[in-house]
């Protein structure tokens, strides 16, 4: 049986992890490779690296970093942040990334999704959506959540899947950072009506939140950052807990 996936997310700037991370068992918590390898060893099923570098050097720095990750990490990983063309993706995949994620650039030019799926296959195209619930529905936000649109998250997700997105990474801005649990309704809606895997993101605070999003929203994977980085929840303990609750989990 296919398992539910646990995915730590690492924010990267200028080749270094951004959020303060406190691990005594690695030498350099700012090194994405060391941290990624540690998570892989602990049983993470995949990794997501989100690049927030805003300099001209970013493309080169990122491709070098991706090569180093690919050399050292023995599980699949996705790279996202600022990707806006077939050529960007080509460089990252050639450097060793397994998948890439697109967000604002795909919303602004939806044909990008078609182009990427045609060129590289749907399996490596992850569509990331930042969404906020207001006025009775979930709307797409762009530019890291700073810009509101009047398009509903479900509608955009559906279109992107038709265009060839192979996976959806859905972040609820209402839930992100609250540690009050994932957004079950919109995650469940996407997961039940669209035939690609849905990665839930935003709101994880307890192990039961993961149980909820897998059981009650049928998420295929759950992503979190700070609770793993700050060791509020450790991956081996989380996977054991989920397994004991009857979920399919890889050990």
């Amino acid at each position: 049986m296919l398992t539910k996936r646990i995915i730590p997310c690492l924010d990267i700037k200028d080749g270094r992890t951004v959020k303060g991370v406190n691990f005594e068992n690695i030498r350099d918590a700012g090194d994405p490779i060391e941290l990624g390898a540690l998570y892989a060893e602990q049983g993470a099923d995949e990794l997501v690296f989100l690049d927030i570098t805003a300099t001209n050097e970013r493309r080169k720095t990122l491709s070098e970093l991706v090569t180093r990750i690919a050399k050292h990490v023995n599980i699949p990983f996705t790279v996202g942040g600022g990707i806006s063309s077939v050529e960007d993706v080509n460089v990252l995949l050639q450097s060793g990334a397994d998948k890439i994620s697109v967000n604002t650039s795909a919303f602004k030019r939806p044909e990008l999704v078609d182009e990427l799926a045609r060129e590289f296959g749907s399996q490596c195209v992850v569509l990331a959506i930042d969404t906020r619930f207001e006025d009775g529905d979930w709307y797409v936000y762009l530019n890291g959540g700073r810009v509101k649109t009047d398009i509903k998250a479900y509608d955009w997700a559906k279109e992107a899947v038709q265009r060839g997105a192979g996976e959806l990474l859905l972040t609820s801005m209402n839930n992100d950072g609250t540690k009050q649990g994932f957004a079950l309704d919109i995650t469940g809606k996407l997961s039940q009506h669209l035939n690609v895997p849905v990665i839930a993101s935003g709101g994880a605070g307890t192990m039961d939140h993961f149980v909820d999003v897998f059981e009650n929203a049928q998420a295929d994977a759950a992503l979190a950052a700070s609770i793993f980085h700050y060791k509020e929840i450790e991956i081996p303990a989380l996977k054991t807990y989920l397994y004991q609750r009857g979920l399919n989990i890889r050990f």
Partner: protein
Amino acid sequence: MKTVIIKYNAGNIRSVMFALDRIGVEGIVTDDPETIKSADKVIFPGVGEASTAMKYLQERKLDKLITDLKQPVLGICLGMQLMCKHSEENNTPCLGIFDVEVKRFTSPVDNLLKIPQIGWNNITGLYSTMFEHVPENSYMYFVHSYYAALSSETVATANYVINYSAGLQKDNFYAVQFHPEKSAVAGQKILENFLKL
């Protein structure tokens, strides 16, 4: 020992090379017929679409070359599917090393099946030297929309709505549907076993 990774137009070649690096083996990425023929081990990887990949191989006469190899050959993912007889993906005749049909996953009427299958699935019925010291029910990383049906050449089985071949073997030809190069320690063991053949 010379380990060759066949270079063609179907992705993920670097991931395989890096995985070999991690176990201390240098892989040579090439499409040169003589280099491939003289290798001790040949890895035939792949992520992509069947008909374009077959066309590429045929244009370079790599199809016949692969079929005639006598040393151990390991097909991975699309590589494995291309080693089968025929693929439903754009109705493509393949290499025919394995007498197996490659079909597309289909949703049962009462259940929305997510295609491609993406993620970790367990493998059972392990019956090949490439699975030595790999426990039954080990989890491997799969990414695929098409699958090889079960056959007498099946040496590992996985289930995604139906049971299908996660591994095939016939004589010197070995193949896996999953990505050992991305399947953590268990996947690495399979690569090590293959390289020790």
